[in-house]
């Protein structure tokens, strides 16, 4: 209806997300691409806020930008990849085919979304603001989804043990 602030923010941060993603996959230095991935996660967090999902946005900043990216940067620094020639990236017909097929995938998904959902859901639901709070999601997580929460905890425990075992120096 109006030329709203929401639209302006969506355009700025959506284009920012796409630009940082493209920059991420084109950098030669892994540290630069990790930093661009952090910026990309930040723009995605802003898009979650535009969708009124506050809890998910905060979790995105804490978990992805805080924990996972620190892990990535830590591993990159640990491995000390000074020899970039070993990772030579040359153009072959395989890679060109892969890019073309990925563009085809994007167009396929885009046309499906465009013709499948155009004009059906024009605005956010009235309850969207209440749905995204930590209160409502926490209520659901501890009642309806209590078993999946326990399963996710077990998964994280298995992940910790597996990571320690895999990264150990020698099996005694």
């Amino acid at each position, binding site marked *: *209806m*109006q*030329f709203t602030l*929401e*639209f302006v923010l*969506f355009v700025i941060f*959506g284009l920012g*997300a*796409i630009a940082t*993603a*493209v920059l*991420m*996959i084109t950098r030669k230095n892994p540290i630069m691409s990790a930093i661009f*991935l952090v910026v990309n996660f930040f723009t*995605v967090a802003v898009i*979650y806020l535009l*969708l*009124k*999902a506050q809890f*998910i946005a905060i*979790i995105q900043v804490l978990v*992805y930008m805080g924990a*996972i990216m620190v892990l*990535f940067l830590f*591993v*990159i620094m*640990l*491995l000390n990849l000074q020899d970039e020639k070993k*990772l*030579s*990236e040359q153009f072959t017909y395989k*890679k060109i085919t892969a890019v073309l097929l*990925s*563009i085809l*995938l*994007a167009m396929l*998904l*885009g046309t499906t*979304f*465009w013709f499948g*959902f155009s004009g*059906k*859901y024009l*605005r956010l*639901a009235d309850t969207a603001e209440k*749905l*995204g709070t930590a209160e409502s*999601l926490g209520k*659901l997580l501890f009642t309806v*989804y209590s078993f999946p929460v326990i399963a*996710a905890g077990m*998964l994280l425990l*298995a*992940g*910790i043990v*597996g*990571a*320690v075992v*895999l*990264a150990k120096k020698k099996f005694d």
Partner: protein
Amino acid sequence: MNLWLFILMLSSCDIRFILLVLFLNLSLLLINIMIDINFYLILSAILFAIGVIGVLVRRNAIIIFMCIELMLNAVNISLVSFSSFLGNSSGQIFVFFVMTVAAAEAAIGLAIVISLFRNKETLNIDEINILKW
């Protein structure tokens, strides 16, 4: 009003005036746009395709892991947008669990990368081909 402006535009030969009218028409077009669910879904489709390009084209194992995180994020955008446009909070719960699995996957994957680098001194996935038939 647009018709009058169009006739004026055709009748005048001033390039600045034509540009002004075109700009006005374009801004009128933009004013009528409102963000519905399509924009978010198409953004998520584009991000997903960029992640697929990264996984298929890059040869560095760490960058491939980062592209997988990018694809998980793209799917999360579409889940959250469905959740808030339809007024159902299951999508955001799913996003919570996807993030949990992504954290576990990143930890395991990076441990695998470290042990691979310890054994083969490389991260190029073309040279890591023990399991290839």
